[in-house]
Structure formats: C-alpha cells, structure tokens
C-alpha cells in the first residue's frame, strides 16, 4: 500500500533520513520505534509531503507522491495525526471534527457515488455521511460528545489527543499515520487510545504508528521497524522484535 524506497530527506544542511526502505501493506498495523532524534517523525513528514525526499521514492497505492502537494495527499486517503496534538484551539470540538471532513466534498465530487448528484443532493449526502461519522467518533470517545461545544484549546491533554485522533478519523483515511499518540498521556488514556487504534484497524484502516512506548506498540502491531540515527536497522514481525534481546535492552528496558 505504502512503499518507501531508498528515501533520504532532511532540513537544510542536515540529512535526517538516510536511504530508508519501508513498506506498509493494506490492513496492517506497522510500528516504527527508535530513540528520539532517530528520524521517525521526519519519516512521517516525508510520507505526508511536508518534507520532500532528496532521493528515493515514496509510493502510495502505486502512485508516486513526489509531485503530489501535501494537501492533496490527504485527499488520497493518507492522513497524519501529528505529534503534539495540533488541534485548532479556538474552534469548538464539533468544528474541529468537521474540519477533519474538509476534503469530503471534493472527494465525493470525484468519487463515482457523487458524480451524478446535484447540489442539494450532494449536500444532503455530505450531511448524512458527516453525521454518521461523527456518531462513530463520539461512540469511540464519549467524552468528546459531552464537550462538543467547548473550544478545543480548553480541553485537557488527553482529550485533545482523542480529538486529534477523532479528527483524523473524520477524514476517512485509508492509511492513518499516528505520531506518538501516547506522548505525555496518563497510562489509562494511552490504553484507551491503543484500543481505539485496534478497533479502527479491525474496521479496515491501515495504521503506521510511531511510538516511544515500544512495548505497547509492538504488542499491538503486526510488524515493526526499528530506526536508529536516520536508518532502519531492524525489521521483523512485531512478536519477533518483542522477543529480540537487543531491542529489549535498548527500547524495552529489561
């Protein structure tokens, strides 16, 4: 589904990624673990088109992303839920979620379902789709339903993270990139978020998960990649990695 072949990228004079190869197949949860500064976030940024690869190719469903601008990549169904919960602080929870569905209209227009529809019918379909998806998000994160009228910036950290995940879900991704969803959250909430990721995956969303909490990530994922200073140093089935002595030493702390 997603394929990185020999991708190098960086900022200014610094090369962060050095010839990365990475692959995500449809229906998988793949996790990317590694120390801070290993280039995990940069990898995600490169996939999303925020950072252009210097060498190598990023392909999504066979399509080369080199020439596709960042906002178009979202429309292809490749969505990132960024680190540090970049939500819209002065929009309400509901507006934040609706913002996630921003590209929906364009997508619908292009899709076969929406081709023949006129303005009113299109809007009606949009509305019903939106409401259905909202209900789905609220079902997963009931707390968001309670706070739908509240400004995003006034939510607590955990709620903001849920909002960010919910917002990413609203874009109806085929492939969801999650950047450290557990960062700075209470263990209890981390668990909740991981449960949601599992649920989403069962519903057919492919997930690429970047995580500090290597143990939980590897328990959840099908496969894992280990990154170190800009290079992928190991890749295997998650259970194998979990059992690997070197991984245990470096990332699991046992």
């Amino acid at each position, binding site marked *: 589904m997603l394929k990185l072949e020999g991708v190098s990228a960086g900022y200014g004079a610094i090369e962060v990624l050095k010839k990365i*190869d990475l692959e995500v197949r449809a229906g998988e949860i793949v996790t990317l673990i590694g*120390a*801070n*500064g290993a280039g995990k976030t940069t990898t995600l940024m490169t996939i999303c088109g925020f950072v252009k690869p210097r060498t190598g190719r990023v392909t999504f469903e066979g399509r080369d992303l080199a020439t596709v601008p960042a906002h178009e990549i979202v429309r292809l169904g490749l969505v990132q839920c960024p680190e540090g919960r970049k939500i819209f602080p002065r929009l309400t929870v509901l507006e934040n979620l609706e913002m996630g569905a921003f590209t929906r209209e364009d997508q619908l227009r292009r899709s076969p379902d929406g081709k023949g529809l006129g303005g009113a019918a299109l809007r009606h379909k949009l509305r019903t789709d939106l409401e259905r998806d909202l209900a789905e998000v609220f079902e997963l994160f009931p707390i968001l339903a309670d706070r739908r009228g509240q400004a995003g910036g*006034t*939510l*607590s*950290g*955990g*709620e*903001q*993270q849920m909002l960010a995940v919910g917002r990413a879900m609203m874009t109806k991704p085929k492939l969801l990139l999650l950047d450290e969803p557990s*960062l*700075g*959250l*209470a*263990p*209890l*909430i981390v*668990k909740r978020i991981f449960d949601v990721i599992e649920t989403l995956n069962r519903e057919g969303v492919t997930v690429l998960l970047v995580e*500090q909490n290597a143990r939980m990530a590897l328990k959840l994922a099908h496969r894992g990649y*280990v990154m*170190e*200073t800009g290079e*992928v*140093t*190991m*890749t295997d089935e998650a259970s194998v990695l979990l059992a690997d002595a*070197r*991984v245990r*030493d*470096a*990332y*699991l*702390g*046992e």
Partner: protein
Amino acid sequence: MTPSDEIGAASVPSPSSSRPSPLPPSGRAEDRPGEVLLEVDKLTIRFGGLTAVSGVDLRVRAGEVYAVIGPNGAGKTTVFNAITGIYEPTEGTIRFAGRDVRRPWKKLLVAAWLGVGLAVALLMLLFASNIDGAWTASVKQNFRGRELGFDPGRAWSDAVAYVAARPRVEQAGGRYYPTTHDGSRAFGSFDDPFPAWELLAALEVLAERGSEAIVARAGGFVVLDRDGVAVGRPFAERARLDELVGPAREAAAGARAARLTRAIVFTLALLLGVGGAYAAWRQSRRTPAWVAGHGIARTFQNIRLFQDMTVLENVLVGMDRHIGKTAKWWAPHRFTNALPPVALGVLLVGLSATTAELDADPRVPTALFALFALGLVGYLVWTALLGAFSRRDLGVEAEAAARARALLAFVGLEDRAGELAKNLAYGDQRRLEIARALGTEPRLLLLDEPAAGMNPAESLSLMELIRAIRERGVTVLLIEHHMRVVMGISDRISVLEYGRKIAEGTPEEVRSNPKVIEAYLGKEELG
C-alpha cells in the same frame, strides 16, 4: 536489511554510577534536610473561564526528590509555571524557604510610581495649559538677549502663573499691558504695572466669590468687595476703570474655567500615571528572573536551550547572575583600569583649556563643565564595558568557565563543550538543560518531564543523575510520566487530576491508592 549489532550499545551512554561530584560547594546556606523548603498553599490558577489548577497544596522538604504526576492537562506544568513566576496565581500563596515568592514592596518603589505619576501629570498639565504658551510666558518673555540676561526666578513665577491661569502683565516699550493668562487679550496700557495688575487679580477674586464689585471713590477709584473693603490700589480715572471691569471679569471667568480643566487633567493624568506604574509593577512582582535569583531553577517540557550557543555558553548564561556578583561594575579594579585614559583625557583637556583666556570667553566655564561631564560619562562607559576586559575580569570569566566545565562533567557532557547546543542528541540536550539550571546554583530544581522521549537506558542514567543532584544538596521537584523513573527515585509523590490533588504519599502509598489507579495508572501498568 541487516540488523545492526550495535543497537542499544551505541545509543546508551555509559552508566555513571562512579561519577564524581567535582563541583565546589554552592556557597549558599545549606538547607537542613527535612525542613520545608517549598510551600504551595491552596494554589488556584484560572485562565479566563478555565480553571487550570484549583486549591493545590504541596510541601516539598529540603533534600528530597518530590514528584508530581497526573494525566496531561492536569495542571502540573501550570503549577511549575506559578512556582517559577511565569504565571501569577489567581489565589493561594507560594512560599519558598519561609518567604513569599514575589518581590517585596519597597518604599522606594512606591515613591518611584508617585514620581512617574507626577511626571506624567505635570507633562499633561503643561499640554493642557498649552506648553507653547507657557514657554513663551516664562522663557521667551524673560530673556532679553545676552546683555540683559535671564531671570530664572521671574521665569519660574511666570510659568507658575501661566499654568495656574493667573492674569499677567506684559511689557513692551516701557509700557505695561495687563493680559489674560494666555495673553490672548490685553486690557489697556499703563505706565505703571501695579494698578492694572492688581485690578485684574481683584476682579478675579470677586468673581470667584460671586460677589458684586463696587466701584467707589476713596482717594481715587477702587474696587470694593461686598463688605466695602477696598481691593487693589486707587485708580486715577473712573472712565478707564469702568471700561476695564466688564472684560476683566469675563477674563476672570475664563481663567477659572481653564483652571478647572487643568485641575481635572492633572488629576486624571496623575491617576493614569500612578495606575500605569502600579500595573507595570504588579506584573513585575513575580518575575521568572527574580524567582530564579532566589534559588529556584527549572527545565522545560519541550527543551528550551539556546540552540545557537555552544554548550559551554549555555551553562555560562545559567551562571550569569553569579558571575555578575563577582564582577560588579563598581569593582575597584575597574576604577584603577580606567584611571590612565581618563587622567590622560583630563590632562589634555585641562592643558588646552588653561591656554584659553578664561575671562575673555564666557563659554569656557560651560565648556569645562561639559568636558568634566563628558569625562564622567566616558569613564562610566569605560568602567562598565571596556573594564570588563581587564585581566581581573578575564580571570572571573575563566573561573566561571572552569566551573561551567565542572558542571558539564557532572552531567557527562564535558567533551561536548564547544559544540552548538542544537547539534546535541536529544538526551544530551536534556542533560545540558539540567546543567544550565544547576548553573544558577539553585536550592530547588524543578524538572519538567526530564525523561520524556528517552529510551529506558537513558532513563536509567537520568535517574542516576537526579540522585547525584540530590546528593549535592539540591532539592528536586519533578513532573514525570515514566512510572519507572518516578517510582524509582521519588521520596514522595503527588497526583494531580483536573487541577486538583487527588493523592499524596510515598511511591508505595500512591501506587496502591485506588483513586490513583482509577484515574491515572490503570490496572495493568503496575504489573
């Protein structure tokens, strides 16, 4: 893809259990272990309508490692920000080593606001009373060229009279013209300034009292008040007097109105000035710099190093305050250093000045004074800036650099001193931030998620570091999510949730507290 053999081994710094503590003693009074160092009482912080922290109490004792845990958004960092003076608490107090963590009120400062307020008010008063006119009335009118000179006393009284909207007498060509305060209207012309002057003043008095002016004959014509008491001196012609009374009374009324406006403007401006100064001071009562200067240092959640400075410079910035104490600008060596150039300048100026014929040129004394002042300013500049490069100051800097290096060695960064901070690895940046904070010679060190983003091995060596810091006699207060770190090094733990403290105690107590498990830890994590 071949898995590297070096995973972990390369990225994990060697454990530093045998790390020496090479630092000289901090020079502060040693805190007695067990004594309450930081006391946070019923701390409440609201932003707009949102309550971030409500009624939190913390007691941190000297010599312990105290951890604050809780979900993100529970208000932990907000508490830190309040302690370090970044936020002003809405309610509650924060006491450090027995004193309030805010700048004390000082008489001098009260006087300073009043001064500022008065200055603003005076300026506004001048504007309200037409600063241009005041200048004309006081300076221009009273300066009649070099030969005739300038009477400062008269100028002052004229300025006061102008601002107070009192009638004035202007003179031209040997005759006197009594005028309204702003000079907009003159009343006749006289050989003698007194009658007209006093007449206007008298009329004004009467207008203010609201009493009738009576013109009567009593050895000349005078104005009488209602009781028949003469106001002003006799006046020769009745006709002239009659002509003057009406307009003069109008002028008096105008002056009264002007005085009223000025009084209002003055009062308002005074309030504004004092209010502004007070607001500024209130804001600055609790400043991070002041707090840091009193022994509380901190690190930040998302590392805030000076990225484009070297590692060593980062630590030196932290030590700045203490370098400053040893290198005061008035230190004696600065005076001696500055002496030769200043003496030379004075000598040169003096020589050239004495060659002048002092009596002939009246500008010479002024020039000498100015040169003296210049010398003084130059000297100050010299002492403050150039003097910093005396050998002694270089000594101070070198000593500071040595201490900074010792600090770097303490956190294990001794061989990175010349590197730019931004080029350090993530874990090293955290360590550098701690070293920089230690540079301020704190009694209490606040660490905001020091282990965030560290792998387990790095976390372990961080724990070592925190223990070493405590052994140096620095109390540590930290926020952390990594339970392993928290449980491993803390003496006591507080748990916050939604801005409230839900539990406090030793790691064991907290770990088994059902409220904490429910709200924060969850069940599995403890296994």
